[in-house]
């Protein structure tokens, strides 16, 4: 009984840190405790969290997708271009289809030829970012005013923007996919022990490809959301995004080795990161020191993760 509660607390380190941090910040910084600030944090983390949720699935399957940043750029510019040239429906559907194609390519090339996903998606990063730049000839796209498209970011339900709900729905759906379906169980097994998964008869190509497709799909949703919020899109919008996403995942305590982790931890990691960045901004800490803090956090998070794991293994 006691062991159970201790292991529960151990698994919730991030949540506990988050709660303490929020309490301290609420007491210490007056501007932090305003409702509008909490909304700001939610808005800031929604976009990146959706991508992180998708990436979590890939990481659990033992892979890594470095092409999320360029896919994000491509989907964002496509969305605005489609909006200007055609209509709202295409502005939402075309980026999603493009992203799904990228996901299928990533998944099939890595799993069918049994290649390292880091290198394949690195190649895909160049291809897609080149294509995104070529598609709009390097220029930032400004969207024509369109009430329906802007509504994705502007409509509020209970004072919370619509796209924050999209984030919450996606997180829940992915968690269910991971925990309750044969896809999720297969993915965990592939991440833990691919040889065993093959022997049992799991279709590795299909499941891995599916995880890449879900990841790219999430990227396109996030990109459409951001395009709707800003109504402009640069073909370089997603440069370096892959590193931000991996940061959120690592802080969430997901092992990059595969086979472990869940969406809930990723979301807590992303919120934790969002709250810390928000607090640093509110206290006027320069951008440079925010980056230093972020770097320290990544190293601290993985160090703590390994400490926890090795003490667990000793028992």
């Amino acid at each position, binding site marked *: 009984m006691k062991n159970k509660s201790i292991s529960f607390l151990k698994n919730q380190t991030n949540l506990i840190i988050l709660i303490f941090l929020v309490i301290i910040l609420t007491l210490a910084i007056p501007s932090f405790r305003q409702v509008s600030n909490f909304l700001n944090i939610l808005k800031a983390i929604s976009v990146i969290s959706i991508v992180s949720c998708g990436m979590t699935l890939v990481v659990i399957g033992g892979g890594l997708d470095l092409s999320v940043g360029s896919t994000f750029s491509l989907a964002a510019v496509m969305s605005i271009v489609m909006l200007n040239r055609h209509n709202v429906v295409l502005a939402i559907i075309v980026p999603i289809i493009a992203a799904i194609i990228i996901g299928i390519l990533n998944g099939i090339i890595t799993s069918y030829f049994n*290649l390292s996903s*880091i*290198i394949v998606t690195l190649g895909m990063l*160049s291809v897609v*970012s080149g*294509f995104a730049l070529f598609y709009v000839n390097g220029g930032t796209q400004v969207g024509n005013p369109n009430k329906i498209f802007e509504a994705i970011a502007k409509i509020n339900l209970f004072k919370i923007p619509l796209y924050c709900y999209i984030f919450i729905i996606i997180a829940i759906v992915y968690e269910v996919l991971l925990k309750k379906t044969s896809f999720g169980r297969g993915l965990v097994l592939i991440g833990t022990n691919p040889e065993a998964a093959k022997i049992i008869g799991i279709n590795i190509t299909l499941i891995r490809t599916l995880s890449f497709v879900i990841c790219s799909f999430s990227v396109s949703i996030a990109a459409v959301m951001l395009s709707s919020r800003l109504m402009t899109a640069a073909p370089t919008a997603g440069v370096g995004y892959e590193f931000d996403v991996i*940061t959120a995942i690592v802080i969430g305590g997901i092992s*990059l*080795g595969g086979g472990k982790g869940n969406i809930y931890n990723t979301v807590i990691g992303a919120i934790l990161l969002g709250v810390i960045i928000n607090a640093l901004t509110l206290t006027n800490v320069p951008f440079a020191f925010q980056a*230093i803090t972020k770097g320290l956090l990544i190293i601290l998070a993985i160090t703590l993760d390994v400490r926890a794991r090795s003490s667990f293994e000793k028992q």
Partner: protein
Amino acid sequence: MRSNKVLDFFNEQKILIVIILIVAVLTIKTTYFISFANIINILMLISIEGIIVIGMTYLIILKELDLSVGSTMALSGVLAIYLQKYGMFVGIISGLLLGMAVGFLNGFLVTKLKLTSIAVTLGTMVMLNGFVFALTNSATIKGTNKSFPLIANTTVLKIPIPIIVFIVFVIIFEIILKRTYFGKNVYAVGGNIIASKFFGIKVEMVRIAAFVLTGFMAGIAGVLLASKLNIASGRLGLNTPILVITAVLLGGVSLSGGEGSVSKAFQGMLLIGILNNAMVILQTNDFIQDMIRGSILILILIIDAVSINRAKYI
């Protein structure tokens, strides 16, 4: 049997073959391509980041990656320029020391705390970027010392110094990798870490040394780049980790560790340089150049995978 040998040769030397093909096609198109000036041009483009490729090759043979090389390069350059007020050599030496210190930190965290190198170096990358922005106030800083720019802009026998440093380092570190005790240990640890430990190789020492080497190379690259441009900024080095890793892998060094060489990685970097140059000469759209580079990387990987599979069935 004989056809297999021919196949093996082609498989082993495919990068060289691709390079020769590109050169042949372009020479037919324009004689400028193989002129001395253009060869120097190509080498100059790849030499500074090519120095980092050497260190990264050691790491990839050891099954590690270093994502922090770009920001290490940027910070070394910033230090080299920022500390010029205390004398040129103070700046240069602190740039180099910084590279080694970052490498040691990475190596220490990865080996002693048993952390994943991708995650650790991602952390140091973000952190160092922060230091760069803190020192430069997110702006570009200019050098004030008159002799500092001469380091990278002087030519010996018409060859600029960065190229000489690059080529000499490729040769030295290829020899170290192939002919010394340390180099053999690098292959052993990359191939099978547990067996290496069993044979009494100081595994941790070898891995830390490779990280320090990579950091040192990034430091040299940073100082040379700062000297070449006489400026330093946080924007320099953003694409470096991806470029460097692509070059090593393009050269046919496998991410599964235990194999590869500096000369192979050099071929990979050379291919990138020649491709870039060829596409500029052919006036290919900048953005299509990115796509071609990425496609070639994926294509070579697939060819590699298919030929390995065939080898298995034979």
